[in-house]
C-alpha cells in the first residue's frame, strides 16, 4: 500500500513549524498508524534526517499518549478509537493524509507531533483525587454503591487523559476531561469529602490553564476514544452550582 503523509514538523516550541510531505511505499495495510511512523522514521534515519517525534507508550489503546490529529480528526476517522489502534486498511491506497499535533494554547507543541499535556496533570492535582488512609486496602464491598451510579461513574472513569476532547473542540475546551473526573468522583461515596472543593478548584485550574468554555457542540464526545458522554458536563455544571450555593463558609 502507498500513502503520502503531510506531517507537521516543528523543531521546538519557539520554531514556527511547517508541513513536510513524505511518500511511503510498500506499507502493510494491517500495520497500525504508529507502525507506519516507525517505518517513516527508519527511512528518515537512513537518509540522515531528523525522525518525526510523536508520543506513544502502550500502543494498545489504554495509556492515552498517541496524540495525532489525522485528516482533521483527533485519533483519525474511526469512532471510539486511539491512533495506536488505527490501521492503514481504513485508508485508501495512494491517499494523502495530513497529520497535525493537538492544537491548544494550553497544550504547547514540544516538538513535531508531541505536545505538553501537563496542564491536565495540574488540573488533576487541583482536585481530581480522594483522600484515603494508607496501609491495607479496605474490603471492597464495605461501602455500597448503587449499580446505576457505578455504571455512570465507570463511563467517566474510563478517561485515559489523551486530550482528544480538547483537540476536537472548537474552543479547545477541557470540559469533558474535567467533567469526567468531577462526575466520576461525585457519583461515588468515596468522593464525598472533597466534593465541593474539587469542582471549584478543578474548574479554576482549567480556566487558569487557558482552556476554552463549553459551547455544547458534542465534538468532544464524538472524538473521545472511550466514548465518555457529555452528560458528565451537565453534571459538572450542576455540581458547580451546588458547590457555589451549598458549601459552608
Amino acid at each position, binding site marked *: 500500500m502507498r500513502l503520502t503523509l503531510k506531517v507537521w514538523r516543528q523543531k521546538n516550541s519557539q520554531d514556527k513549524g511547517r508541513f513536510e510531505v513524505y511518500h511511503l511505499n510498500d506499507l502493510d495495510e494491517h500495520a497500525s498508524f504508529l507502525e507506519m511512523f516507525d517505518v517513516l522514521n527508519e527511512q528518515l534515519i537512513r537518509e540522515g534526517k531528523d525522525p518525526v517525534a510523536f508520543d506513544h507508550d502502550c500502543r494498545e489503546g489504554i495509556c492515552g499518549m498517541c496524540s495525532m490529529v489525522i485528516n482533521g*480528526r483527533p485519533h483519525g476517522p474511526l469512532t471510539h478509537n486511539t491512533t495506536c489502534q488505527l490501521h492503514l486498511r481504513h485508508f485508501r491506497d495512494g491517499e494523502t493524509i495530513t497529520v497535525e499535533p493537538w492544537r491548544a494554547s494550553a497544550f504547547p507543541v514540544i516538538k513535531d507531533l508531541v505536545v505538553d499535556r501537563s496542564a491536565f496533570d495540574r488540573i488533576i492535582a487541583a482536585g481530581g483525587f480522594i483522600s484515603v488512609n494508607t496501609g491495607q486496602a479496605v474490603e471492597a464491598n464495605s461501602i455500597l454503591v448503587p449499580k446505576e451510579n457505578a455504571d455512570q461513574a465507570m463511563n467517566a472513569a474510563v478517561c485515559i487523559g489523551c486530550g482528544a476532547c480538547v483537540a476536537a473542540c472548537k*474552543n479547545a*475546551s477541557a470540559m469533558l476531561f474535567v467533567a469526567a473526573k468531577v462526575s466520576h468522583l461525585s457519583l461515588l461515596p468515596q468522593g464525598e469529602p472533597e466534593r465541593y472543593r474539587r469542582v471549584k478548584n478543578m474548574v479554576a485550574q482549567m480556566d487558569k490553564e487557558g482552556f476554552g468554555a463549553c*459551547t*455544547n*457542540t458534542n465534538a468532544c464526545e*464524538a472524538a473521545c476514544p472511550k466514548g465518555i458522554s457529555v*452528560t458528565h458536563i451537565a453534571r459538572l455544571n450542576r455540581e458547580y452550582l451546588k458547590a457555589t450555593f451549598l458549601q459552608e463558609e
Partner: protein
Amino acid sequence: MGWMSQWLFSSVGRKWVMAVTGLFLCTFLVVHLSGNLLTLIPDEGKTFNAFAHFMSHNWIIRFLEVVLFSGFLLHIIQGLVLMVRNRKSRPVRYAVHAAAPSVSWSSLNMGLLGTLLLVFLVVHVGDFFVESRFTPEKLGTDAQGYVNLYAEVVHSFSSLPYTLFYVLAMVALGFHLWHGFQSAFRSLGLMHSRYTPAVIWTGKVYTVVITAGFLFIPLYWYFMQL
C-alpha cells in the same frame, strides 16, 4: 461575595449567564411574535397599534423592558467575551478540520449567528423602537389617535433589500435557536435521560414555529405590496 464572582466569572458561570439570558430572550420572542402577528388582522392596524400603545404605556411592561434590555446586554457582552476567550484558546488553527458528523453546524457557528443577530438588532431597534418611542410624531397617528406603527411596518416591507435583510436575520435566528434552546438546558446542568429528549423535541418545535412566524410576516407584507 467572592464565592459568587468565582462562579460567575468562571467558564461554567459565564455559560450559566448565557443560558439564563438566552432562555429569557426565548420567552420574549414569543411575546414579540404574538404582537407582530397582529399586523395580519385585516383592520388597517387598529389592533396592532392599540397593542403597541399598551406595550409602551403600561408600567409593568416598561419595567420588563428594562429587564429585557439588560438581558440582551448581558447575553451580548457575555457572548462576545466567550467568543474572544474561546478563540484565544486555540491560537494556531488546524490545516485540515473535519467536524464529526454528529456535530451540528449551528453549534459550531453560534458566535457568527449571534453577531448577525447583533447587527440586525441595532438596525431593528433603531428603525422601529427608537422611532416609535422617541420621535412618534414622525410616524403620524391612526383613526384611534395611536401612533401608527402599523403603517411604518407595512411600508418597511415594501422594500426588497430591507425584506431580504429581515429574512436573512430570521434564518440566523432559527439556526441560533436550533442549537441554543437545548444547549441552554445543559449549561444550567439540566440533563436527564428521562427529560432531555423532551427538551430537545420542544426546542425543535419552538424553533420551527418561532422562525416560521418571524419569516412569514416580512414575506407576507412584501408580496402583498408587489
